[in-house]
């Protein structure tokens, strides 16, 4: 996922915070943006959450313990910021662990409706509760293993697996029923 190793980024941040942070941004800004965007859907919400994520990363890098990967730590902060952004737009989405109502995909100028299949997949993902969405996105798009998904979502490996498989089943059902 990154062009620099975690150790390289962290060692540079320890000796030269600005240079290290530039490396971290270069490595993570795009995958983290897409992760947030898949949750918030709306570009401007994702933009705000991305900025907040990296400001938090910069300010709290001293608290990072190397018992998890840097990617997992950054994605954990990003997930929280994305869910916070959703929470601010209560009209759009149910809160964490809320009902599994089917949420609509909000239109903005940075949304491409031309590929109907991918729009349908996003609709299916957004019909899931946030924890299942997170588990599915982190596994399917970002290719984290279950242990890292558990750390990112502050749950157990078993819960991460269960959330991912439940999400997958629901998405398949949604896709089949909306052919």
């Amino acid at each position: 996922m990154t062009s620099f190793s975690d150790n390289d980024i962290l060692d540079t941040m320890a000796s030269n915070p600005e240079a290290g942070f530039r490396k971290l941004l270069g490595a993570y800004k795009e995958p983290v943006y897409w992760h947030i965007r898949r949750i918030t859907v709306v570009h401007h919400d994702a933009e705000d959450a991305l900025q907040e994520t990296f400001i938090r990363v910069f300010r709290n890098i001293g608290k990072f313990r190397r018992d998890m990967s840097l990617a997992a730590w950054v994605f954990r902060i990003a997930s929280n910021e994305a869910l916070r952004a959703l929470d601010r737009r209560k009209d759009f989405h149910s809160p964490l662990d809320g009902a599994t109502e089917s949420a609509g995909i909000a239109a903005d100028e940075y949304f491409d409706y031309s590929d109907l299949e991918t729009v349908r997949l996003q609709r299916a993902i957004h019909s899931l509760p946030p924890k299942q969405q997170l588990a599915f996105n982190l596994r399917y798009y970002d290719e984290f293993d279950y242990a890292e998904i558990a750390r990112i979502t502050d749950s157990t490996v078993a819960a991460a697996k269960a959330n991912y498989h439940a999400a997958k089943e629901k998405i398949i059902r949604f896709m089949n029923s909306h052919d």
Partner: protein
Amino acid sequence: MPYRVPDTFFDDMERRIMAKAVASPRRRRNLLPALRRSARVAGAVAAVALLLVAVERVTPEAVACSTEIDIAFDSLSDADRSSLLEIYQDDIFMNQ
């Protein structure tokens, strides 16, 4: 994915984040060591002042005075010493 971003979004975003992250906390961080240094200097000055006050209290005159009293007490007879001790042993001003 059906999502798009404006052209040059990621470069612009990186510049904005760098500016915001590096600028504001830095200023705050630069103040802290200066404040800590000032507090340490103030602490050291206070400690030296306290030490000087303490030394001043135990002046050579006071030491000489107490030595003279010791000599005078030593020159007393046993009966006088016992009587003095008996009189003043419960004196709260002498024994505070």
